């Protein structure tokens, strides 16, 4: 998988692309932690628009990002989730902890 990022006006957007599983999660977390440390953003948007697969390793990653952001008084949420990743998010009940906004369903 790939993690791309963009930053503007206190908001960091992380674009997750490809497949997020246990094999990919550790490297993704290292990259994300570094990026968050670099920018110290107020908001962090995890954009899943181009994520084709995710399992429970992704749930743990999102919870970790949420905790990272909370450490500096910031906030994180998930945007553009669809299909399989959205179904995993729904099944995990993670929306009780972090806001999930789904892509417009076509």
């Amino acid at each position: 998988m790939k993690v791309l990022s963009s930053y503007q006006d206190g908001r960091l957007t992380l674009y997750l692309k490809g497949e997020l599983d246990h094999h990919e999660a550790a490297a993704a977390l290292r990259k994300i932690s570094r990026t968050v440390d670099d920018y110290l953003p107020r908001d962090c948007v995890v954009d899943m628009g181009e994520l084709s697969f995710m399992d429970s390793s992704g749930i743990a990653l999102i919870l970790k990002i949420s905790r990272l952001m909370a450490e500096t008084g910031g906030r994180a949420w998930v945007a553009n989730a669809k299909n399989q990743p959205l179904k995993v998010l729904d099944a995990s009940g993670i929306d009780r902890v972090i806001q999930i906004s789904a892509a417009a369903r076509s």
Partner: protein
Amino acid sequence: MKQLNYIKMEFPAKSVNEGFARAAAAAFAAQLDPTMEQLGDIRTAVSEAVTNAIVHAYPDTVGQVQMRLRILEGEQLEIMVRDKGRGIPDVKKAMEPMFSTGGEERSGMGFTIMSSFMDGLRVRSAVGRGTTVTMRKRIQTKAGA
């Protein structure tokens, strides 16, 4: 139940094999003509079961993971993932949502996801001997859906 087709594979408990196991399961299931959503469910359940064998079963060694897929009468897909690792002392407890012995990198949602994405889930485990996870899903043909 009559078995119509099957595959068996074995691989070392290395995380690089997770993606391969998902892809192999999806390719085998394709003969049942599943929907995109059903294929996603199968890939997800396989990923959870195989990842558990890789992460939890063998703390100090790289053991073996076996996966068997079967097509049974009545358009049933059966997925079995087996390890000969340390086993689970209390299966009922392990299957509760959010229960995890895996620390911060895990969410404790694996079994919950397997059971919600498949129609049936059975976990057999013996401490010191290993764990076998068996899941079933009915794949109705698109024409009949």
